[in-house]
């Protein structure tokens, strides 16, 4: 009987679900299948030479260790950026959700999502002005400090991390904020009344309950950062060659779309495996 009721519920929900599914099919499924097709072609030249199906593009990844090295570097970058975002974003979200009240909260909330308001390219280029030698940060530091420092972060790994953290931090703050806000203040007070210090309360009560938000934010950050190419290219210089920039090169510079598509799918597979493996572990922790 319940099954029947659920069925009729689903039928009733169909008109509501249809637009969303139609859009998802169009926006994700079609381009993705096109990409799967490309990734299996020997070549795709504009002159229209006949191409045959092959797994060669995937084999390229395994034949040249450079790709794997870059992939590992990109995963590492994703991990670092995610971690930095947790370290900065969680406390910020905590202050926002549990300490500020009323108008102050709204004002600070707007500041937090400020990066969303500007174009990402503009954002990255403004960082390049801040970080380069003789740039804003360098000049400011020399104006304050009595001794001379040369400060040039531009075209370095830290610059890439700074740029990426800046771009993706709001996701972490938002997801953490939502899960922190859902925690009843009485739970925190109960823990304190039982003798727990602020830190113990954070560790034993707040952190476990906010974990879903941290995880959602991490997924939202880790996945795009691993495939990122714009920030590494503009802020990273020579050191900024990563898995994402190599894929981008295939599409925009070398015009080897099949290889670019194949590399993308390998990335997708690796990320999916990471998510699948970590899901049960994290669920147990939560």
């Amino acid at each position, binding site marked *: 009987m319940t099954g029947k009721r659920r069925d009729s519920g689903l039928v009733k929900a169909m008109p509501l679900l249809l637009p969303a599914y139609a859009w998802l099919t169009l926006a994700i499924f079609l381009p993705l299948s096109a990409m799967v097709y490309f990734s299996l072609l020997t070549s795709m030249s504009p002159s229209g030479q006949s191409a045959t199906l092959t797994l060669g593009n995937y084999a390229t990844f395994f034949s040249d260790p450079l790709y794997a090295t870059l992939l590992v570097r990109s995963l590492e970058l994703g991990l670092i950026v995610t971690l930095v975002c947790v370290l900065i974003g969680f406390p910020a979200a905590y202050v926002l959700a549990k300490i500020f009240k009323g108008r102050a909260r709204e004002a600070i909330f707007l500041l937090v999502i400020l990066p969303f308001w500007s174009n990402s390219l503009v954002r990255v280029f403004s960082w390049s002005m801040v970080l380069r030698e003789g740039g804003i940060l360098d000049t400011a530091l020399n104006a304050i400090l009595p001794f001379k420092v040369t400060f040039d972060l531009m075209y370095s790994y830290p610059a890439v991390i700074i740029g990426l953290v800046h771009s993706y931090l709001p996701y972490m703050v938002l997801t953490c904020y939502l899960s922190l806000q859902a925690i009843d203040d009485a739970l925190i*007070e*109960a823990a304190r*009344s039982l*003798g727990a210090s602020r830190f113990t309360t954070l560790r034993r009560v707040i952190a476990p309950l906010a974990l879903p938000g941290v995880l959602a934010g991490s997924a939202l950050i880790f996945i795009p950062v691993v495939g990122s190419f714009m920030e590494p290219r503009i802020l990273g210089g020579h050191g900024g060659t990563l898995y994402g920039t190599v894929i981008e090169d295939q599409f925009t510079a070398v015009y080897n779309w099949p290889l670019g598509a194949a590399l993308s799918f390998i990335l997708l597979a690796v990320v999916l495996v990471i998510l699948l493996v970590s899901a049960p572990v994290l669920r147990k922790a*939560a």
Partner: protein
Amino acid sequence: MARVEVQNVSLTFGVHKAVDDVSIAFEDGGFYALLGPSGSGKTTLLRMIAGFEFPDTGSIRIDGEAVENVPVNKRRIGMVFQNYALFPNMSVADNVAFGLEVRGEKGETLRREVADALDLVQLGALAKRRPHQLSGGQRQRVALARAIVTKPRVLLLDEPLSALDKALRTDMQVELKRIQREVGVTTIFVTHDQEEALSISDRIGILKDGRIVQEGAPEEIYDRPASEFAATFLGEANILSGTAENGRLRLDNGLAIDLPPEGGTVAGDFRCAIRPERVHLSALPDAATAGGQLQGVVKRRSFSGSLSTYVVDCGGKEIKSVVQRGGGTAIEIGRPVELRWNRDDLVMLPAA
């Protein structure tokens, strides 16, 4: 277990004085109810004793130790919250163990103390459940076990039973009383349910607008309310106002009643209160054969099981009388009646 002493404590939120110069002592092992209308400052006072709010002025002592500047986690208090506030990410046993673990207890001692506390609230069988798998009453018991397992110096409860339905609430009152007796912890219980306060506590403090208006044993407050507010807030009361002269009170409608003996000397505007159950009714054959303190006509009546409530119109002044329903027949509406009471049951109230 300890004595809690609150002295001249005030706390202002913005311009609003939530607690205004309150002084009250909670004796060791006593069961106190703080009773008052909404917004009277009960929760604020309780939270200051707990250490969630800090008084602007005044002192709070627990066991002789001044605690105004001690943070909540160092005060060794136990608190039960209105919405239970159980940790949803922990089992029942882990919830109860939390306070002990924080204090560094572990192993067999910890396990045994948790089991004992759960047995005390009769929930030993549900130790492994999560809070969301419990009923409201069971959650309340877990919250109680969690609060007392750490042997707090004082147990604070903020309307802990208000989320439960009537029948369950009565059960929990009995249960709470039993557990408090068994543990012997000084208990301060906030409620705005006067029946609950009367039935559960050894002493009651009545708050109004941030001030304690009366404090004493339930019978004492009920029988000898010190103000009209106390008389009407705790239980029902007929308020008789008029002018006193020569030991009699001339009511505003012209009728007069005798004052209690100690009222012989008062004069001028004056108020008295009498509980409805102290007003005895008897039907008269007709209005001419009147006796008693006052006469009137039955205007309304209602039954609640074993009791009947009559509203009698005495020359425009309505007086309520509650009588035990015996074998006799009820008095019909419109019947002339006489009202009698013992002069000592009349409580003289200070001029408003």
